[in-house]
């Protein structure tokens, strides 16, 4: 387990940088985590993060790529444009959620 400081707060992350406890996450941290991946957060990004957070809370699991499209109303193309190369992993990291564990 490692520690990182985002928005002036120290949080626990795993070896790959995913949050150990998603309750430590705040919206202010998202922009800083995103910057580490060279992503500048916009309204569109925030919509993705909001859906991820709320769906994770409701279902207790990271949504699949298909669910992002169908339930989250986030077209696959847009998802890749917003978070290039590995959108689900990147957006989960920025949203303070665990690493996605599904194959689809």
């Amino acid at each position, binding site marked *: 387990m490692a520690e990182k400081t985002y928005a002036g707060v120290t949080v626990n992350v795993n070896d790959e940088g995913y949050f150990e406890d998603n309750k430590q996450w705040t919206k202010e941290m998202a922009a800083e985590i995103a910057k580490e991946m060279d992503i500048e957060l916009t309204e569109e990004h925030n919509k993705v993060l909001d859906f991820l957070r709320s769906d994770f809370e409701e279902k207790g699991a990271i949504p*699949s*790529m298909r669910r992002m*499209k169908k339930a989250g109303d986030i*077209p*696959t*193309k847009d998802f*890749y444009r917003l978070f290039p*190369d*590995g959108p689900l992993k990147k957006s989960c990291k920025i949203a303070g959620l665990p690493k996605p564990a599904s194959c689809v």
Partner: protein
Amino acid sequence: MSEKIKKVSIICSKGSLEGIYPALIMAFGARMEGIECDLFFTFFGMDAITKKKMNKIKVATVGNPAMGIPTLVGAIPGMSAMATKMMMKQMDELDIPPIDEYLEMISDAGGKLYACKASVDMFKLKMEDFCEQVDGVLTVGEFYEKSAGAQIIFT
């Protein structure tokens, strides 16, 4: 640590449900990891991208010992359709999309889809027989050219 995989070229050569899905799952999984991916459809694997056939793909219930049903039972009309229906339902629960939707997602995710020239000629198909996501028809030589620096996976 050894170097990460940057690019894969996946060849889909079989036209059964259990032949096609592994290729699609591997392809989309690659794009989920940010790995560049080309999918090359050859022989009966081309059914997956052929408009008239892509939604009629079935599980092989004959000659498939892993199914656990005797060949003669598997040969009863409707068996394959029933097994396919059951499997598709199971996959849907896991959010594994039907073939047409999956190809769309792979393409939207930046994966490229190609048909094999030799098979296209053999089955007398044209570009318009394929779903719109297909990027072109390639000769084997062109396929290898595109695969420079990639890991090639044959399914």
